[in-house]
């Protein structure tokens, strides 16, 4: 089980959290002008890197807040967690 660092609550067991996939996927700025292909990429396509990944988690069984974190998909090593709307720390 992962030990995940919630930026509000500190390190907690993975079972307290739910996964939110890739972080920093912004809602399209001009949705009314978006092509079907661009919509497809916004809705269905996410990065799937082998290595460091910026992803979202929500502390469901704790403070119930969303946050972002760097995690390595090859080693399960965590980098820094950070709150939404704060600048992302550099890749570990």
């Amino acid at each position, binding site marked *: 089980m*992962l030990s995940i660092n919630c930026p509000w609550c500190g390190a907690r067991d993975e079972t307290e959290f739910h996964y939110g996939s890739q972080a920093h996927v912004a809602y399209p700025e001009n949705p009314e002008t978006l092509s079907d292909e661009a919509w*497809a990429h916004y809705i269905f*396509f996410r990065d799937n890197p082998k290595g460091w990944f910026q992803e979202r988690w929500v502390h469901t069984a704790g403070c119930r807040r969303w946050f972002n974190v760097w995690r390595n*998909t*090859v080693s399960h090593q965590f980098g820094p967690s950070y709150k939404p709307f704060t600048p992302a720390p550099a890749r570990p």
Partner: protein
Amino acid sequence: MSGPLTRRRTAELPEHPDFLWRKPQLKKSYDVIIIGAGGHGLATAYYLAKNFGITNVAVLEKGWLAGGNMARNTTIIRSNYLWDESAGIYEHSLKLWENLEEEVGYEMFFSQRGVMTLAHSVGDVRGKQRNFYANKVNSIDTEWLTPEEAKKVAPILNISDTIRYPIMGATYQARGGIAKHDWVAWGYAKAADDMGVDLIQGCEVTGIKVDNGKVQGVETNLGFIAANKVALAAAGHTSTLTQMAGFRVPLQSRTLQALVSELLEQVLDTVIMSGAVHVYVSQAHKGELVMGAGTDAFNSYTQRGGVHVIEHQLAAACELFPIFSRAHLLRTWGGVVDIAPDASPILGLTPVENLYINSGWGTGGFKATPGSGWVYADTIANNAPHALAKNYSLKRFTTGHLIDEHGAAGVAH
């Protein structure tokens, strides 16, 4: 490729049978390069050679033959999916399974012992009955079982209505079953090798060369290999390969775990799945209980998962089968599965000419091995999607014609 079956005693634990195929000298170029010598890659090579006479083919494998998800799955075979597209390809696959050992001349312990899928709530019953009727419409064999009828098929099943998630009914596909996964791969490998396909182990693709939108070959740790056509069959590593070729795919790589108990007397001669309490179980020929459940929650390439996921599925198993509570866990492992947003495969052409994709089989690729190989070989040979692959193209994420099999896939993703 008919001939006497290569028989072995079931109790034997063979070494990796490299004697079944040549150790070929890598050529500088091939008509077709298949990336990934798992079940789907090997089946594709076999059908390219057998159905189309295309034998100047290399199957490149970065590890050892069939050592990825092909070595890590729970070997369940069935075709009772919900949508017409799925019925088409999975049923085609099941029909191929039914004659596969004779066809390739290699024993695979294919056993049509039935697959039962349990329903545990009113909503679950409605969902499973919808699936049951959809199967009927598609001429896929299926039965609806009451709890009592389910218990007749599997007497160790707990059908008490006082357990937390009582069994309220089940679908049953009698033609479903299991096979011995390694032997399936070895059978395809041997038969493909016999027809002249080069199986190259320890060859990792590090780049895909594309010129003017057309694939030219692959860079590997053994040097550049030219190819007229390149076919991806790399499951959880598909998106790392498409990145090399310069396009994205809507796939996420997750860990899917499985486990076995120690060897026990035979107590279960069918396959039982429950999506709601989350476990699927069969008993292998030697006697070990083979179980799996859903994926771990997050993206991972580690082939490792959390113990709490195992704990969850064992809790479900012990409630459904009280007799399992004294069994010991012998081994657990994980594979890297590639999951598409609609839990259906992506099979067909790509934005790069002569580069083909077969991926997204997610948590259920084993059953599809023959059908996937057949359809993919046809798609590669004709440079056009096979009729059964038409709706599995990458384009469906743009058109919105998704093939949503989250329910019928049997497990949560």
